[in-house]
């Protein structure tokens, strides 16, 4: 690694740049460093606390190679809810990578053991400890971790190949930075469309925006209609206790919303009619007792509000999960998580998870296994490319547009107003969960207007640049989501159209979205090419 130009950190030249310091980015940095690459990881917040993993309890999709039927069963089970959009080859690769890699974290993560000293399981991780372990692992591997270093845009060579990124330091008064790299891994998370989903504030879809500006496409963006229950006004979207929940309306009448696949829809219907209250009285007494050491953050809101959640009813809401527990993201074009844009790889929630999740939420398990696996493949491939393509600032040009370089005369555009527009279209249950053509068209018009304002006129300055760029990413993500939801005139998995309540066998295909001013949605010509061999 070397430095050119003036100023500390400005002008770093590295082999691999990883954008995003959550689970996927940390695994990508791990893999790239193990390939011998000099790696820099930039993170908008702090690698260890930022992103959807850190405050959660990520399980991992898990099936050992023995007995042989375990993986076949896991894949068959997943295929039943993938609704034709999953791919068994990719599922097999993810299960294998996760099973092989997760135990290697043992030097950094204290996997709980039973009385005989045997690890109870490797798959159930605590978020804060997991991210702390990954950070220590990459630091020990020589990765340079730059916290509070949000990336704002990618840098490209004249031939379109990605050769770095640029951004600002939020703790140095917005001073700019530029990094040249042989390859870039985008692991910037997905987006909850700025809901209160725990830990998701930084997840504004930045990776989607930057990848699309480089020429990559989006896939599966219609699958954003995932929601998670939480106490009203809180961020505590930890679901385990709610597996035993009972729900009531304002008059104390029980709502028919049993634990199962239809629960979210039933709760959303009830919430559209009025406030909903929850009782956790049925949570078994032994689980109540162990709850603080199973999920130490779950009881924090209750304790602070003076609520006994096992004896008192409390009001609940549903927070939008967007693509974090949903599916969509940058279209993966090759088995090493390439995007079709030379030098640009994607991982975790930034990469479309359709390959392994299909049309139904992967929940924490599939999503975590995907983050680990895609991060590993992307990081390894980026390191190998960097051996062939040396990094250089020569001829690099910035690609950022909306929020950075307006297409028309610049004037003050409020990021907060643009973000409010996204929330107004992507959060309401009667817009994003229970979809109709008419409501989607109305959302499209509202989002188009907000996008035009930001893209044509918006320009930031200092810390305001980050907020405006986040607003642009949120708007772009929401527009791709609404456009694909309009095009998918059927109900499939988490995508529910009230005006098309049946599955249409003719639409068993991925929907590919692209573009900014004018959006294009087209059916994927064919599923991702069949794997010939795994990454050599």
């Amino acid at each position, binding site marked *: 690694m070397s430095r050119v130009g003036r100023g500390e950190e400005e002008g770093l030249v590295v082999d691999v740049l990883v954008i995003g310091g959550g689970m996927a980015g940390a695994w990508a940095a791990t893999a790239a460093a193990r390939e011998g690459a000099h790696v820099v990881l930039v993170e*908008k*917040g*702090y690698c*260890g*606390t*930022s*992103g959807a993993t*850190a*405050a959660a*309890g990520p*399980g991992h999709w898990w099936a050992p190679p023995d007995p042989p039927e375990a993986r076949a069963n896991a894949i068959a089970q997943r295929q039943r809810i993938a609704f034709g959009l999953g791919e068994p080859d990719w599922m097999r690769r993810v299960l294998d990578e996760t099973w092989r890699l997760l135990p290697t974290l043992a030097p950094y993560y*204290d996997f*709980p053991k039973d009385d005989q000293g045997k690890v*109870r*399981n490797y798959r*159930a*991780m*605590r978020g*804060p*400890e997991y991210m702390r372990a990954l950070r220590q692992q990459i630091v020990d591997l020589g990765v340079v971790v730059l*916290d*509070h270093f949000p990336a704002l845009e990618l840098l490209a060579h004249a031939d379109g190949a990605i050769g770095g990124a640029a951004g600002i330091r*939020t*703790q140095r008064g917005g001073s700019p930075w530029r990094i040249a790299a042989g390859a870039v891994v985008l692991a910037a998370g997905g987006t909850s469309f700025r809901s*209160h989903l*725990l*830990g*998701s*504030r*930084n997840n504004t879809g930045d990776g989607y925006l930057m990848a699309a500006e480089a020429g990559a496409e989006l896939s599966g963006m219609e699958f954003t209609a995932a929601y998670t229950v939480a*106490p009203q*006004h*809180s*961020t*505590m979207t930890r679901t*385990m206790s709610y*597996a*035993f929940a009972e729900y009531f309306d304002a008059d104390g009448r029980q709502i028919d919303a*049993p*634990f*199962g696949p239809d629960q979210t829809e039933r709760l959303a219907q009830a919430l559209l009619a009025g406030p909903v209250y929850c009782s956790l009285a*049925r949570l*078994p007494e032994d*689980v109540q007792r*162990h709850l*603080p*050491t*199973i*999920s*130490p*953050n779950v*009881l*924090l*809101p209750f*304790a*602070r*509000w003076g609520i006994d959640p096992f004896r008192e009813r409390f009001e609940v809401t549903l927070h939008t999960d967007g693509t974090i527990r949903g599916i969509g993201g940058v279209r993966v074009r090759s088995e090493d998580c390439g995007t079709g844009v030379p030098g640009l790889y994607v991982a975790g929630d930034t990469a479309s998870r359709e390959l392994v999740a299909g049309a139904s939420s992967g929940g924490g398990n599939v999503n975590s296994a995907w983050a680990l696996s895609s991060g590993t493949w992307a990081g390894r491939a980026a390191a190998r490319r960097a051996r062939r393509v040396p990094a250089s600032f020569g001829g690099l040009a910035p690609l950022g547009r909306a929020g950075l370089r307006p297409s028309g005369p610049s004037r003050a555009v409020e990021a907060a107003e643009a973000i409010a527009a996204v929330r107004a279209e992507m959060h309401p249950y009667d817009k994003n969960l229970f979809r109709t053509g008419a409501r989607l068209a109305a959302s499209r018009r509202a989002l188009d207007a907000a996008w035009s304002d930001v893209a044509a006129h918006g320009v930031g300055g200092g810390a305001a640049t980050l907020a405006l760029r986040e607003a642009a990413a949120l708007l772009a993500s929401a527009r791709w989501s609404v456009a694909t939801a309009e095009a998918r005139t059927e109900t499939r998995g988490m995508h529910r159209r009230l005006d098309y309540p049946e599955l249409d066998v003719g639409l068993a295909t991925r929907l590919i979205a692209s573009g900014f001013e004018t959006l294009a949605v087209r059916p994927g010509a064919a599923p991702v090419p069949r794997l010939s061999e795994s990454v050599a």
Partner: protein
Amino acid sequence: MIELIIAERCTACARCIEVCPSNVFEPTEAGPPAIARQDDCQTCFMCELYCTADALYVGPNADHPEPVEPATVLASGLLGQYRRDSGWDEWQGRYPNEQWLMETVFRRAAEAAR
């Protein structure tokens, strides 16, 4: 969202400034950091987990501030709850990580729902 830094507990180690994912704190000349950008707080409680002095209090309301008095919070016994139950630092070994029980809880729920 973040409501309080208890000045009498804060050691001005600046760890919260470093670990906050949304950069809500700002260093001051001397003494505790300032809560400079409360609106940016994502109510993730991570700062409390990393504060070995148990000097931080995050209110559970992510929509609106809920101001509290330092004396009330100090008397409540709530400070440091997250770090203790997580078994971090001096609590290591006394509060075991039982995350692995989660899947059995989901299994029991599914069986109960049948």
